[in-house]
């Protein structure tokens, strides 16, 4: 990139999930192999699958405010600073509670700006299933370019009939706990979390920084991924080019891994073409399901936690899995302590969109 780059540091995170009270709690649950996913039946829609439902009474606006306020207090952040911006990553926002045709992705932005008297209205990034990864890319770049000093990226999306019926119409919902990269994988589980990740121009105690990213379109199909992983491959190459890292130094890939036949095959192609077959890889979908606009955010947060803790998490929560992909990926079979310095996070989505970002230890 041809601008004088500052560094964007990972400065903290917080999450709301159905198995934890905070991020540290979530981390210990994940280490113990606990999943947010539970069996789910919806007779009216003819759906039998697993979902990760928050089942909270608060409205979306209240949950967002709660998350933001508690994070800001804990970290002594001045939300009103003109050097701070909030990025919201979502695809369907408040559609669950907004009534028939009242969806407005600007509502949450307006609500938060008014409630906290923010200088800037929160920016809404809505780019299908890469929204979260792309929002982090944009947030980190904004800091690198000196646009803001602090950016808080918040990802969320509702688990609701709108989304479930749509994925059902694609016959993409798994009737069981999802099996990313497995020979017998049967599709997606949908999930719901709220996740906040904080990027700052200031170095932190364990300095981890954003080390490049790219987002390239497949230009192939709006609802199916490119067969040879073209857009994701180009995204990974772009991320490696604009970051300060050699591909041989990547220690871990946090894949999109939705557990659909086509997605996981596509990713295997892209990783192979990028010469990354040997790099330990997992998907976190067995823990959270596909949390849509929140996916890139929560999965990046856990990847960052893995980097901090030098810990790899098992890809599967099944006793046995058989990995059968076009290329032999190094899928992480069980939890493992291992020194980690560079992590690649990938996402792909409808519209042929792909994003790849890299986090590194200083």
């Amino acid at each position: 990139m041809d601008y004088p780059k500052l560094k964007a540091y990972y400065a903290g995170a917080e999450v709301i999930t159905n198995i934890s009270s905070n991020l540290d709690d979530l981390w210990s649950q994940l280490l113990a192999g606990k999943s947010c996913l539970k069996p789910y039946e919806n007779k009216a829609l003819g759906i039998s699958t697993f979902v990760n439902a928050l089942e909270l009474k608060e409205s979306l606006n209240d949950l967002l405010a709660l998350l933001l306020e508690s994070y800001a207090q804990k970290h002594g952040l001045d939300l009103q600073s003109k050097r701070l911006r909030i990025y919201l990553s979502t695809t369907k926002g408040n559609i669950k509670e907004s009534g028939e045709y009242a969806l407005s992705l600007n509502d949450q932005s307006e609500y938060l700006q008014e409630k906290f008297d923010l200088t800037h209205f929160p920016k809404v990034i809505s780019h299908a299933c890469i929204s979260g990864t792309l929002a982090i890319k944009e947030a980190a770049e904004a800091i690198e370019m000196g646009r803001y000093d602090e950016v808080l990226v918040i990802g969320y999306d509702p688990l609701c009939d709108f989304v479930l019926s749509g994925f059902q119409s694609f016959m993409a919902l798994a009737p069981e706990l999802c099996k990313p990269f497995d020979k017998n994988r049967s599709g997606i589980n949908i999930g719901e979390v709220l996740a906040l990740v904080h990027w700052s121009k200031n170095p932190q105690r364990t300095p981890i920084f954003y080390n490049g990213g790219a987002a390239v379109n497949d230009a192939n199909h709006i609802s199916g991924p490119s067969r040879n992983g073209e857009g994701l491959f180009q995204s990974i190459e772009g991320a490696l080019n604009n970051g300060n890292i050699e591909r041989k130094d990547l220690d871990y890939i946090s894949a999109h891994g939705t557990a659909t036949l086509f997605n996981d095959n596509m990713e295997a192609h892209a990783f192979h073409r990028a010469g990354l077959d040997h790099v330990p890889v997992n998907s976190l979908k067995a823990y959270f399901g596909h949390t849509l606009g929140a996916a890139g955010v929560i999965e990046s947060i856990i990847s960052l936690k893995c980097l901090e803790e030098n810990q790899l998490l098992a890809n599967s929560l099944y006793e046995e899995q058989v990995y059968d992909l076009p290329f032999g990926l190094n899928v992480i079979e069980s939890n493992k302590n291992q020194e980690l310095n560079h992590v690649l996070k990938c996402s792909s989505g409808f519209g042929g969109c792909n994003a790849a970002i890299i986090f590194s230890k200083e």
Partner: protein
Amino acid sequence: MNANLNIRSWCKIDADGFQSPSTSQSFSADTKSWKQLYKWLGLNYSKIFKMDSLCKWSFLAVELLKKTHDFKTCPGIYFANHSSSYDADAAHLNALHHKEGISPAVFVYTLPNIAIGEIAIANQWHASSQCEIFPLMDPRYFFEELQYFIQANGNLKEFIFIWCEVKNVQPDVFAFHLVREGGVMPFNVEQLVKLYQGSDEK
């Protein structure tokens, strides 16, 4: 910061018609007006018939830009609107409430970035893009946004900005093509206001 780009072409489409540097045509006020533009452009692209209205108008806006000046390289695409995929959402919700006809061909359009996907497919652009939802089409926001988008994509030579707001089939589209060399208008807030409000530009 100086992005050092200029505007090569622009277009505007609303319920009354479309405008670009070389033409200004009115629509008859019906919901099929996209076909008039499609015909005027002399296009033969059957995929457009499957698209929802957001994608149709976004695709046509890019074709209108190309009519004035074609793209030489794959551009970075900055796409924004207010109502996301409102019409497709309404269609999917309607099918859901009536428990019939839930269709993947409708559901896939319930994401605004599908418009970028359609443009990328039609032009074979492996494009770098952003898709964002804003309160309104304010040239000041987007001038600032684009400065950073351009800086972050310093390797690219051309960019497209598309504001494509479609609600109840009514379009409000404003798009322009930015180039590093050979632009015909300055890229600044005043110029964007002038073009979007259509005061003295034809």
